[in-house]
């Protein structure tokens, strides 16, 4: 146990903290290299649209905002203050939805992103691995080969283009799926069967985007991993021993190959998350991606900061949790 803590747990925790430290520091430094001052940006947003503010009132607003955004003091002081606010979960108010806190808006959007991302990720990972393993075990199977080709063709295409093609084809030219949103205008999110069904209906194309782009990678990865295992002695031994093919496939081949695939899943979380953001923009799905583009359009600097930090912490935490669960699947880590 002590070895496990020293050799496995401590390095993982260190790595987790390193990621967050690197991410937060990058997020702190980047805006301070920029020439645009968020206080001026906020003032201009208000005065841009024909407001009758006079010069004196703008000046007093400037003082108030500098105070509010914690932009006073030296960069070092600001950096510590930044961490302080972060640890308290305070990312300041959104500029475009003033004075609603950024964390509140992110909190509203997050369930939509996760509600789509997590199932899509599970589907694409499970499907890719299962089909990939089967395809290496049954190399002559035609439907499996066709699926492999589909996966390989879609895999290199950017999420945006896949989403756009799906939307244009199935939302516009052959409108069998909704063109936008996560639920119809005028309804409230709730737990009724009816709402869940419309929710799923609205999620089909967005989820399909993530699955289509994602599963090809797992498919190929699993296929090459399992084809190595199939040639190993114990598989041949099992076959000659007359074990059922399916049993061999699931109990010996897939189980062995799943571990590196699990590590791979953790490593790609950041990428898939990024893909989900841009996919949401295409479908107008009310998650973090849509929040991001709204923030870009309305110059909501504090919101973009908030989303970046939340994404970093969120993805790092997800990876960390997967690291913690990993020993449950891999006995070697437990007993080393």
């Amino acid at each position, binding site marked *: 146990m002590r070895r496990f803590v020293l050799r496995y747990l401590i390095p993982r925790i260190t790595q987790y903290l390193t990621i967050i430290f690197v991410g937060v520091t990058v997020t702190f430094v980047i805006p301070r290299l920029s*020439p*645009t*001052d968020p206080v*001026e*940006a906020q*003032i*201009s*947003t*208000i*005065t*841009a*649209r*024909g*407001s*009758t*503010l*006079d*010069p*004196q*009132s*703008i*000046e*007093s*607003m*400037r003082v*108030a905002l500098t105070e509010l955004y914690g932009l006073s003091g030296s960069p070092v002081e600001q950096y510590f203050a930044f961490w302080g606010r972060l640890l308290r979960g305070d990312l300041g108010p959104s500029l*475009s*939805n*003033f*004075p*609603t806190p950024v964390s509140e808006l992110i909190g*509203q*959007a997050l369930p*939509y992103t996760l509600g789509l991302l997590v199932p899509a990720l599970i589907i694409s990972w499970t499907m890719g691995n299962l089909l990939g393993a089967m395809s290496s075990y049954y190399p002559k199977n035609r439907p499996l080969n066709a699926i492999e080709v589909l996966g390989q063709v879609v895999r290199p295409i950017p999420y945006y283009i896949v989403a756009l093609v799906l939307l244009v084809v199935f939302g*516009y030219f052959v409108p069998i799926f909704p*063109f*936008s*949103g996560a639920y119809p*205008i*005028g309804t*409230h*999110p709730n737990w009724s069967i009816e709402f869940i069904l419309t929710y799923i209906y609205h999620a089909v194309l967005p989820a399909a985007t993530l699955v289509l782009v994602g599963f090809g990678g797992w498919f190929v990865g699993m296929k090459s991993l399992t084809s190595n295992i199939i040639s190993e002695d114990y598989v041949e031994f099992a076959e000659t021993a007359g074990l059922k093919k399916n049993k061999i496939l699931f109990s010996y081949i897939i189980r062995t190959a799943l571990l590196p695939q699990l590590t791979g899943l953790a490593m790609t979380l950041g990428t898939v998350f990024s893909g989900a953001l841009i996919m949401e923009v295409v479908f*107008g799905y*009310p998650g973090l991606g849509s929040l991001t583009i709204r923030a*870009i*359009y*309305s*110059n909501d600097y504090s919101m973009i900061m908030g989303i970046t930090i939340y994404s970093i912490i969120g993805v790092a935490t997800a990876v960390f949790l997967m690291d913690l669960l990993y020993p449950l699947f891999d006995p070697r880590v437990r007993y080393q």
Partner: protein
Amino acid sequence: MTSTAGGAATAAFWICGLQQLALDALWYIDPDAGIDGVWDNALASEPPIYNDDFTQMTVKLREGIYWSDGVEFTADDLYYTVDLLKNTPGMSNHGLFDGSIDHLEQPDRNTVVFYLKAPNSRFHAAFTVRWGAQYIMPKHIFEQVEDPVAFKYNPPVSLGAYTLRDFDPNGKWYLWERREDWQRTSVARLGEVSVKYVMYIDPGPSDKRVIAQIAHELDVIHDITPEGRITLARESPSSVGWFPSFPWAHPDPTLPAIIYNNERPGLDKKEVRWALTLAIDIAQVALASYKGAATISAIHVPPTGMYPQYYHEPLEPWLNDFTIQVGGQDYKPYDPTAAQRIADLARESLGDLVPTDPDTIKQYIGAGWWKYDLDAAEQLMLDAGMQKIDGKWALPDGSPFSVPLMSLGESNPTMNRAAAMVVENWAAFGIDTTLDAQANLWPIMDAGEYAAALAWTIETWGGHPDLFFFLNSWHSRFYVPSGQPDMGSNSMRWQNADLDRIIDTMQRISFDDPQGIELGQEYCKLAVQEMPITPLMAYNVFTTMDTTYFTGYPSIDDPYTNPVPNWGNTKYMFVKVKPREA
């Protein structure tokens, strides 16, 4: 939705319907003709009463107006609103009220008297809605709140004809219901409020809005691309716009222009600014930005609302004869056929959608603009001492002359497209320029850290001719050098003694003095001569209304208000719009 009764400080404020349906102000000035004239006494019973030296403003309020929770609206609310804002830092207008109001008095339940710290003949502008203004807050609600700055005014108590019935926590939609007692609100005297439910929806980008209207799912949409509008014209016969045909759009009383930093070497010369103007082909800019569906303006006020009558038409003879010096010769830069050229070019791709009658073209697309004349532009550059080195213009001392053009980025496709075209025109003339699309160019302009920007600094009342609305902060008294944040709308840093005189005179006369138009025309002539910024066109908004279920929308033929749904004035639509008889 958040507490915003303090002023136009949030986006949700005008997207959700609050300022259109639930808030009310003392006065409204219509950007168009208005239902009963441009000026409307909403919560006030008559226009502001100033004393002789403009240090006191007396406001008389209407009786019989009620908040939606049944409490009567009185001078207590007005007094409370102003007093709270004046004494609460962090609320909008705090600076204005604290800086200009000495004290308030409330002689009776329908009267409030403002005692001002300095003479100000336009103090009422703070309470007069054009796009937004100081709305009145309910004393009986806010006085029970500990921290009014952070107070979430939700659900809001309404002073308008509607109350908020339901809304989506993600901000996708807001449903409003007509008040049972809508007769006890200020719009009731103008007609019957017939629409029972109103929903404000965030339908996503332009394409999604257009598709929804073709399917008759959205009655009023706006901020769509010109292409989207053309598609509606072709595929949705029930969709109508401000103009019955091309260019359809409602021209907002805002003037997109090329704004120069008048302090940059080179751009500090009037000849150079004129050369850059003559190097722009307005027809191409109109095509690139609005597919020709633009309303152009050669002078420095938007060609919208009542302004063509106040300014553009009276000044046309002067423009025709106007000359500048080019190479020591008199040169007439005005091209009265510009709008006609735009119409002819647009007709090439849009055919019969584009009007042919010259008067209609003048009303819809505008009159003339400045000539596209590269020879004259070249001569002007040389007159200013500029040099052409290897086909690129340089400053008199041979150092580079670079004019990157900032524009509004992807959130504003038409402006961005116009800027891309101007960049192309200038590059063809030998100017070293690039398109610099910024989501937020305002702070950069305010700081003076730019050479040129396609944006706007001129916004007018639309219906009322008084130009003090934007000229106020152009007085050299408020001048701030480049590098420090400017606090008004003089981001081009134009300083001129004649301009100061015009502004001073305006401030001394009352808001409705007929001399105001004369002074305004004088300003227009001065701005043309100096060309501190190059005016382009009206800010056209493709607000499109579907007549399948409702009729009575405003239009150029019945210009009772502005249909652009995020403006506060659209509250007047709800007394004119009627369900279509089944």
